[in-house]
């Protein structure tokens, strides 16, 4: 039977040679290499649950009177988008679990992309010849963040509506074209009745299609260039070592898919997420407090909160305040990510091919810069909760904000210096792992 199937396709497409070499393909095994796969499998879960949701969601801002199964809101005037989200959650059997799994999958999707990005960065996997795949990866990160935002904005609840209002203001803050851009994207002045429909098409069609294309390119490049590998254990630049695709790697990877899906279902079943019925429907003159976005927007939210009350006004034109923490910061962040492989090659003069990964200690400067940058975004992330922190600690929010405004510069500097120092000591000590490094390796050696 199998023989006949193979023959059928080979006689028509001549694929046997490719199939053979594919089944034999060797994949290096390391737990850190699974992060990208986790992201991929989150994406699969997102597609599957997302398809289910589209069958019920109504992307319309038309106002209706809610008469569904959630009693506290019966009789309220809400948008049809909000109404259908409540129906999905309360009236469609298995609808709520699908919605919550979808939301959790999005959170984990972006988290695993970021973790994967860190793995690739700190192990130097982005170096020649893999710069192109790094670029594809960064693009997918941007798309994933965008799609997360557009997705949670769809239900038209009070929290996400406020997020959209801020997004409109940010678009409007772009120099020269900002006003036009905001009006074209939103289809008019905020709140426009067109935006939910547009977000829906972008969220369910355009961005997923782009992601499918980019994922294919990403994997094809990994396939063609072969995976990188950690040094040691006799590994060389000219070989790959590990189990073969068929059947070992395939089975383990499929197992990982089921494991990821299982955990996402557990999260979606047991841990409530985005309870839009508690936030209430969006009304432009109402606002929920405290208002925190999904985690991957936290750095932008934090930057908006920390940036001092500055704006530029000259010659009758204005650069509004949100331009700096939102547009400029995001632009610099992703520009920096895109350019990093080339900047590093230029700075170090290293233009050779690398198939063996580096350990962070082998490149203390890169690792220190990476750790410092990461800590910068972590501080911004926590700054997005300055109001909650102020409440818990019972201090004024201005004090918390002030501390963060200092920390956002001090913490990265300290983290960078400490990382550099530790990694240098680790490299000198020759210890195989960080935990095995003798303390005296930390002593500074003065030049004789």
């Amino acid at each position, binding site marked *: 039977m199998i023989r006949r199937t193979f023959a059928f396709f080979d006689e028509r497409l001549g694929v046997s040679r490719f199939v053979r070499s594919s089944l034999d393909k060797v994949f290096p095994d390391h737990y850190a290499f699974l992060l990208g796969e986790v992201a991929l499998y989150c994406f699969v879960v997102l597609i599957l649950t997302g398809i289910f949701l589209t069958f019920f969601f109504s992307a319309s801002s038309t106002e209706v009177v809610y008469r569904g199964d959630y009693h506290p809101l019966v009789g309220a005037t809400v948008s049809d988008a909000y109404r259908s989200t409540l129906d999905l959650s309360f009236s469609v059997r298995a609808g709520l679990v699908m919605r919550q799994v979808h939301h959790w999958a999005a959170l984990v999707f972006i988290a695993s992309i970021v973790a994967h990005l860190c793995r690739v960065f700190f192990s130097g996997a982005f170096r020649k010849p893999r710069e192109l795949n790094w670029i594809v990866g960064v693009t997918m990160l941007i798309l994933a963040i965008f799609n997360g935002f557009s997705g949670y904005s769809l239900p038209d609840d009070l929290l996400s509506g406020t997020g959209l209002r801020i997004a409109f203001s940010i678009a409007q803050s772009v120099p020269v074209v900002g006003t036009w851009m*905001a009006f074209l994207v939103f289809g008019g002045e905020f709140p426009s009745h067109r935006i939910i429909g547009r977000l829906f098409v972008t969220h369910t069609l355009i961005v997923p299609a782009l992601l499918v294309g980019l994922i294919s390119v990403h994997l094809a490049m990994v396939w063609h260039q072969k995976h990188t590998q950690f040094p040691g254990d006799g590994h060389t630049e*000219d*070989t790959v070592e590990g189990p073969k695709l068929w059947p070992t790697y395939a089975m383990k990877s499929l*197992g990982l898919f089921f494991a990821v899906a299982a955990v996402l279902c557990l999260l979606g079943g047991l841990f409530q997420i985005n309870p839009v019925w508690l936030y209430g429907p969006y009304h432009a003159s*109402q606002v929920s407090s405290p208002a925190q976005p999904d985690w991957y927007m936290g750095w932008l939210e934090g930057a908006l909160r920390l940036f001092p009350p500055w704006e530029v006004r000259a010659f009758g034109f204005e650069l509004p305040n949100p331009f700096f923490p939102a547009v400029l910061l995001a632009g610099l962040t992703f520009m920096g990510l895109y350019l990093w492989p080339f900047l590093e090659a230029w700075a170090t003069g290293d233009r050779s091919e690398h198939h063996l990964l580096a350990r962070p200690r082998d490149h203390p400067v890169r690792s220190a810069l990476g750790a410092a940058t990461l800590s910068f975004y972590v501080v911004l992330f926590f700054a997005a909760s300055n109001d909650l922190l102020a409440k818990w600690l019972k201090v004024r929010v201005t004090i918390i904000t002030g501390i963060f405004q200092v920390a956002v510069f001090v913490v990265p500097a300290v983290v960078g210096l400490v990382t550099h120092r530790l990694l240098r000591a680790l490299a000198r000590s020759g210890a195989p792992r960080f935990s095995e490094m003798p303390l005296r390796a930390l002593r500074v050696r003065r030049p004789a």
Partner: protein
Amino acid sequence: MTEPRPEPQPELAPSPTAARSPARPIALGFTVSMAASIGLGVVYALGGQVQLEGLLLFFALGGIAVGFIVWGGKLLPQGPYVQERHPLSSGEEEQEEATEVFEEGAESLERRRLLIRLLTGAFVALGAALVFPVRSLGERPGGSLFRTAWRRGSRVVDEHDKPVRPDDLAVGSVVTVFPAGNTDAADSQTLLIRLGPGQYRPRRGREGWAVGDVVAFSKVCTHAGCPVGLYEPDTHQLFCPCHQSVFNVVDGCEPRSGPATRPLPQLPLTVDADGYLVARSDYTEPIGPGFWNRDR
């Protein structure tokens, strides 16, 4: 070329614990999965319950995961197998040739200078023509960021379209108001606040914009447009919950802290013949967050 690596792998040597057949956890995983799937069917038929569905899905999928991972890790050949990496570059010669082939073709095109120019022109024109549909995406911003629905004589109404008299407000209270007939105009949302007697210090040129101790300010935050939702009567301060901008009502809603750079615009008020609050005019400056040509 794929071949097993010659030297033996110590960690692959059978250890006493591994001697227990890995087939058992695998079988257990698949069995648990089957049972959970059946359970899922039952829960669904009984009307569904989100926590149970999540839990059962976890076991249904997780059982298969355990089975696959243990199977792949314990029962299948681990290698490691060694495979050669092939050079990625096709070599300088090939690069040279590809360049040549391309340039040859390009040269034969370049001979037709005029046609190439016309082609470029056609593409540019087409590109420009394709911008027109983009223009349809939204209305022209025009003056809409400079105006709201408030007009001279617009009655001040609450969200239920009920007109408001100055005495309807207790000292220290605040209501969100709109121009009559426009309670859904997001840019016209306004805070009507009654201060204590004599607390209000009008800014120059704004004497007479308040009615008694009742003042009105735009509710749209000048930072990023959130509704400025919280009022603290003791300190006369308005808080924006989005990024914690604070505005001081008694001195014309100047920002006190947070990222907002400009005061909330003030709506000039008066009363009509029936004693209801009305606007003297629209806001005298654009409300809400800044934009490029705001000062024009």
